[in-house]
């Protein structure tokens, strides 16, 4: 379980981007985090990944205060969270297989265990046959599938997807969302940050809106009108 307790975050002493935000995420949930660009969606992910630190408040993962983690524990914490980025964040000069295997290699996996896990993840996103191809030769959608296979290589209990369909056409976006749904059905908590309301309507789920530095739960009723409650 993930909990944000009265978390405030600002950059370079400016007005906070998040102010006293409290949030509770149960195991196995699938939900959207939405809001305009710059609302703080990515900041929530960065705080959770410890790529940024809160000015005040607490972030608890399974009751442990992540802000207190040392460097070693931070690295282990990140292996329990698979992160998918809008710009994929792959190493373009490496192959599909090498990119997927990267988290395993840095964790010390070698030989058969490394190959088996990598192949299984690539097979899940339909890229196993093309594993030797360089990432830079792939389309955006294919790169996102590689990013998903890399994010799931440890079978993490939490997946954070930051605008995962932002650069993709509708069909590819559908494939990516389907993959994320499957990951959720296998038991992982999946949080998708997006400002694409069409996507939210297509794959209905709990939706949280970040507006004016705070989080609000919204219920989608009709395409044109969203109910908002604090």
């Amino acid at each position: 379980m993930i909990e944000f307790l009265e978390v405030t975050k600002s950059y370079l002493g400016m007005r906070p981007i998040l102010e006293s935000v409290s949030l509770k995420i149960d195991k196995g949930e699938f939900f959207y985090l939405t809001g305009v660009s710059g609302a703080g969606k990515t900041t929530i992910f960065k705080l959770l990944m410890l790529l940024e630190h809160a000015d005040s408040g607490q972030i608890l993962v399974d009751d442990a205060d992540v802000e207190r983690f040392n460097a070693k524990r931070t690295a282990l914490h990140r292996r329990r969270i698979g992160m998918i980025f809008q710009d994929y964040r792959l190493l373009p000069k490496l192959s599909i297989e090498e990119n997927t295997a990267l988290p395993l290699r840095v964790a010390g996996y070698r030989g058969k265990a490394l190959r088996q896990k990598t192949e299984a993840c690539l097979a899940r996103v339909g890229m196993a046959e093309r594993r030797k191809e360089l990432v830079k030769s792939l389309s955006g959608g294919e790169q996102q599938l590689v990013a998903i296979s890399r994010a799931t290589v440890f079978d993490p209990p939490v997946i954070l997807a930051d605008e995962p369909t932002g650069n993709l056409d509708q069909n590819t976006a559908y494939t990516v969302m389907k993959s994320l749904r499957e990951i959720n059905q296998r038991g992982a908590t999946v949080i998708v940050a997006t400002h694409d309301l069409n996507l939210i309507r297509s794959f209905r789920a709990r939706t949280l809106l970040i507006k004016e530095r705070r989080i609000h739960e919204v219920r989608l009723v009709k395409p044109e009108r969203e109910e908002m409650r604090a």
Partner: protein
Amino acid sequence: MLFSYSIPRALSSLSVNWRASLNSMLIIAASLSVLGTGVLLYVNVIHFSRIWLSNTTVSLFLGGGIPAVHRDRIVTQVRDDPHVVRAWLVSPREGMEVLGAKLGSDHGLLAGVDIESLPYTVDFEVAAGDREHIHALAAKFIALDGVDEVVYGERALENVRLFFQIAQGVGMFFIALILLSSFMIVSNAIRLSLHTRQDEIGILAAVGATHGVIRSSFIIEGMLLSFAGYLLAIGIIWLGFQIIVAALSWNEATMIVKERAIFFSLDVLLVSMGASMLVGAVGSHVSVSGLLRRIEG
């Protein structure tokens, strides 16, 4: 982790980013070539100073009319001194021949000299480690019956000794200075190559790599770059040394330099190789740590 990630990643990164790697390696090689040439010059200056000091010959000028038996006794007394390596008697004729050879084309200046009026000399050499005893030996042998004068280039000896001391101090200072600047150049070359790969460091951190794992691949890469740069630099210096030494045939003095100039010994080469790899490792460590601090906020 070293075999599962760090070493394979360092090797693949060097080959995949071969242009940036080659660029960094050439910068390192150029800076080490300058450093190495300076050090080689310094080593040879010290080497030749030592040779000059160790070759100091002392001449005892004997009085006129001394019988041959007395002359031989003086030679024996000089030879018996533990600081003397060898001693020999030089007749006036031999002395003239040596002097004529030294004057070369000006030997005609000696045409009017009366050989019979010249004295016999007893020349001797001291061991390299016993140079400081020359003054004492001079004082001891001037007291011998039949010895009129002792000549050993006291001023030249003192000058060389002073130069030797200054060269050691100044040389060490400049070597330290060049080492420091070389460290800056090498670590900047590595930093430049790292800046093109900032994203990679961010990705590694995001997928759960510990700082140690992230650093290790870059440190290995820095060490390999420094090693390659070092080998190239040594090759350049060796080639330059061979070309310059081969060209030193103008006169007697340059022939001596040609015959006795030295290159780095194996010990020095091994130690400097280790030092350059250490510089590469430390440079990488400093650069990656800085980037990690920025990425981790």
